[in-house]
């Protein structure tokens, strides 16, 4: 493949045009606007920046955002693995529908997700009324945020895992079994280590998406606990630009870091896929 591509380097036209166009469009839409955020934030002194970024309210919002995103991503990692396993390995009625439905959260606008989940889990809702009987409140509590983030994140884990699961060679499992391993041992010692990179990739993708999520969360979040994107939004409404910028930079830096982590994980995972 690489030899074919380096050959084409001399022959195929359009390098200059596509490079110029790609870089111009990327700069105009993404890079320059993001650079503006960093530039504006750099007008703050380091002390000012730290004061805003570590204010009590900001810290509280990080705690809610990262806490809920982490819990949701862990649940998604477990349930996503289970779903992918069931979809790839078992044959049962409705399997195709289940497989198709996994992408539903990708296709559904987040506002619709937030609206219906809040209604579903409210004390008058289809599910909420039963949970209320046993004293569990979901909508307008932090559990509500977690529920929304589970919904948003579940496709990431399943879709990261599916191709890997489909590629696993059954011979390896057969070998493990013929050497006397129980099914449980085969799973924990043979299958799980192969899946781990993909699970971690899916986990990171779901976590990264959950941290930035806004649309679905604001419908179901309680008044008292705010997520960081909500805090940025309030600061903007108060025309407190420095307040909004500093916190946005913190979020952006964390997002970049996660993006790099995901890239490294994917590279690591692709080594296991052969």
């Amino acid at each position, binding site marked *: 493949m*690489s030899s074919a*591509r380096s*050959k084409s380097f001399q022959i195929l036209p*359009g390098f200059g045009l596509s490079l110029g166009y790609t870089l111009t469009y990327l700069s105009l839409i993404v890079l320059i606007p993001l650079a503006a955020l960093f530039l504006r934030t750099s007008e703050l002194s380091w002390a000012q920046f730290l004061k805003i970024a570590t204010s009590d309210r900001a810290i509280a919002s990080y705690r809610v955002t990262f806490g809920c995103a982490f819990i949701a991503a862990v649940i998604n990692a477990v349930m996503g693995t289970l779903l992918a396993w069931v979809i790839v*390995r078992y044959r049962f009625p409705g399997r195709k529908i289940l497989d198709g439905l996994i992408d539903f959260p990708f296709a559904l606008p987040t506002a*619709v997700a937030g609206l219906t989940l809040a209604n579903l889990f409210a004390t008058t809702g289809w599910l909420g009324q039963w949970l209320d009987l046993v004293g569990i409140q979901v909508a307008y509590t932090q559990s509500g945020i977690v529920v929304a983030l589970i919904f948003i994140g579940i496709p990431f884990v399943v879709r990261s895992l599916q191709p890997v699961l489909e590629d696993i060679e059954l011979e390896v499992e057969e070998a493990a079994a013929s050497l006397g391993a129980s099914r449980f041992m085969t799973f924990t010692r043979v299958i799980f280590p192969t899946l781990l990179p993909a699970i971690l990739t899916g986990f990171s993708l779901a976590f990264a998406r959950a941290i930035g999520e806004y649309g679905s969360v604001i419908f179901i979040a309680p008044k008292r606990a705010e997520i960081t994107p909500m805090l940025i939004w309030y600061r903007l409404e108060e025309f407190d630009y420095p307040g909004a910028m500093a916190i946005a930079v913190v979020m952006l830096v964390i997002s970049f870091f996660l993006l790099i982590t995901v890239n490294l994980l994917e590279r690591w995972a692709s080594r296991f896929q052969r």
Partner: protein
Amino acid sequence: MAGTTQKRWTSGQAKSRRGTEDPWYIRWILIGVAALFAGVFLILPLANVFGQAFAKGWQTAFGSLTDPDTIAATKLTALATLISVPLNTVFGVAAAWLIAKFEFRGKAVLTTLIDLPFSVSPVVTGLVYVLLFGLRGYFGPWLDRHDIQIIFAVPGIVLATIFVTFPFVARELIPLMQAQGSDQEQAALTLGATGWQTFWHVTLPSIKWGLLYGVILCTARAVGEFGAVSVVSGHITGITDTLPLRIEKLDKEYNSVAAFSIAALLAVLALLTLGLKTWLEHRQQRELDLAQTSSDSPDEH
């Protein structure tokens, strides 16, 4: 059905499955848990959208969709989608051509940068455009003097939508075009075709399903974007409300039926998207398989 341990879970393989098969009770428990999860997190929320929309009858639901402000929101959503999707499609094709067909320095960095909008929180996206074009932003005073409004107006909404849907087409096309290689294009060029002819008659037909797939994902996101658009919109009823923003407003006004009616409309759109997506995945898989059997290294992805 998967009731006994002797039953195989794949067809076409004649080997013993005993060592690779879970006991029936494990299977039933796992399928049960999966079904329960899908029921609570996927099916019930979907059913609830329609249940609430039609809670006061069909007429009320459809009637609320013909509200002038909701129609205005529909038009704005359509406009933002119709501008952002074609722009990002052209970009996606150009970027995929660049990354799949050429070797150059910084390619890995460029690929990562294209993915960047995926990892930026929508609210941060909105904020970034406010900092550029808002009244107190970099270009704010200049824009104000020339009477151009971007933030709290339609251009801002379009810009935010473009940013959020930026990577979708490129992301679909890059792996597809990489797998296809460039042998066919080279053949066309050797036979005397010009660059554009090669692109229109050789490259485009072989990526059309993948392209359509990217366009569909891009459209779904453009229609549904909430956070970024919410920040730059200003929420002027009838003027800068998109459909998702209209849902939020109606929900805040305790107009549940109207909010859920729009939600139902968007949910139908999402289901259509899913159907199209599944169909295209089929076609695209064939495209990829064809590419891989004709190329000498099938491991590229």
